[in-house]
């Protein structure tokens, strides 16, 4: 038996098919993954992501510590509540994890992945030795992502007018403390919506209210197709400790300025940047792929150009919104607009595009 979130029984009641995910028993779907996907694109769905890890970083030097720890710069978070997506790198420039950090007005809150929890905490603790900071995991929170064009309205109807006003004032990528709850306008679907940190003691009742309001429980299956359509990386598939953020479409998350900010991994990334296309492998980058004929692109399929392997798919799926298959791939340098992918010993023509594939329910690539 794996670890269970506070919503475990609620999932079973909703007819969930449970699977092991990083040591947790989590819902993969509640019947049809495609229907769950579509409801998030068109109305509102909700995901229990309580298996993810919340870490509060406090103390006098919390800002300086995170400026050393993270490739993006928390100094960009000028107002309380603002959020930043960033990689946490090792000295070789590989991605230990990707995470979101919130400015909590004098301290910071991080949400990191589930499967990386232990190594993240160990790494963060080790790096904290030279800083006056306190690192505290918050196991008391459940995390609920309510996503879709109707998500904010559905949540707002269930809270007090004062709370609804706080939520209504949220800008994209911003969070706010609402009593004991923390509510952020973030997500992993490419739709508008909220990610809500709610005490374990409150979550079951709130889940039931949302179900009654017509918010559809959605599993990790739909979460994966939604994030891939939105062109968002999945840790462990699209990048890991051996992959540079520059090769994983995360270049925009590296804060190069100010040049004197010596974040972990900086030196390695700077070498990669100056080596450029000269060195084999130094020019690896992420592209999107689209297969309009029958077949499904999957992780580890090889990308072929002029009969040579130029990279591989890191995540692939059937896109329920588009009706054909899409993928993220890591390829070596410029490969043009048309390549092939090898699927079960056959080479099929695919189009190279710039992710994302879908935003706010609509196709967005050329």
């Amino acid at each position: 038996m794996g670890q269970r979130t506070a919503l475990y029984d609620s999932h079973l009641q909703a007819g969930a098919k449970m699977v092991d995910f990083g040591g947790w028993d989590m819902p993969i779907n509640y019947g049809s993954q495609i229907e769950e996907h579509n409801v998030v694109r068109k109305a509102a769905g909700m995901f229990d992501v309580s298996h993810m890890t919340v870490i509060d970083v406090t103390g006098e030097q919390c800002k300086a510590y995170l400026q050393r720890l993270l490739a993006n710069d928390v100094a960009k978070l000028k107002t309380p509540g603002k959020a930043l997506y960033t990689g946490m790198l090792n000295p070789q420039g590989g991605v230990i994890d990707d995470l979101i950090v919130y400015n909590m007005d004098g301290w910071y809150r991080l949400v990191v992945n589930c499967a990386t929890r232990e190594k993240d905490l160990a790494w963060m603790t080790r790096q904290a030795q030279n800083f006056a900071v306190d690192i505290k995991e918050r196991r008391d929170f459940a995390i609920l992502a309510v996503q879709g064009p109707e998500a904010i309205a559905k949540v707002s109807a269930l809270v007090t007018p004062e709370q609804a006003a706080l939520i209504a004032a949220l800008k994209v990528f911003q969070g706010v403390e609402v009593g004991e709850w923390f509510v952020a306008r973030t997500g992993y679907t490419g739709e508008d919506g909220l990610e809500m940190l709610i005490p374990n003691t409150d979550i079951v009742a709130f889940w039931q209210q949302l179900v009654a309001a017509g918010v559809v429980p959605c599993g990790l299956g739909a979460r994966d197709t939604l994030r891939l359509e939105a062109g968002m990386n999945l840790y462990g598939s699209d990048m890991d400790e051996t992959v540079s953020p520059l090769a994983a479409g995360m270049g925009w998350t590296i804060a190069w300025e100010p040049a004197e900010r010596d974040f972990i991994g900086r030196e390695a990334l700077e070498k990669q940047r100056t080596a450029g296309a000269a060195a084999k492998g130094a020019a690896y980058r992420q592209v999107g792929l689209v297969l309009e004929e029958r077949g499904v692109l999957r992780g580890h399929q090889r990308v072929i150009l002029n009969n040579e392997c130029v990279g591989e798919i890191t995540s692939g799926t059937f896109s329920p919104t588009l009706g054909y298959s899409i993928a993220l791939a890591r390829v070596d340098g410029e490969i043009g607009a048309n390549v092939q992918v090898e699927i079960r010993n056959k080479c099929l023509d695919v189009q190279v595009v710039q992710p994302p594939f879908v935003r706010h329910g609509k196709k967005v690539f050329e």
Partner: protein
Amino acid sequence: MSETPTELRYLSSHEWVRIEGDVAVVGITDHAQHAMGDLVYVEVPEVGLELAAGDEAGVVESVKAASDIYSPVSGSVVEVNERLEAEPELVNSDPYGDGWMFKVTYTDDSELDNMLTSDEYLAHIEDE
């Protein structure tokens, strides 16, 4: 829970087989469609294709995974379910009915003896 009709025969690779005279009708089990989740493509064999028992006869792909479909008998494909090209979800909604995949002739009765009964198939998926 998934259904496993007693009048059918099964392969450990999760195909079901219905004998209709000298033809075997083949599909994938309710257990298999549940495990795969929503199907998005079904590739059926071409009519006329000669198959040996155990040959790959087609592919089903769900959002999650791809899985080969094997022929339970040796013979030639006489009919395929063309509706599955446009409606792969029929395999999810009606795996033993409208979700059938192909019909193949057979001549060697002993091949039928190699298949599992519903009880044997249920025991097999318990063990998996």
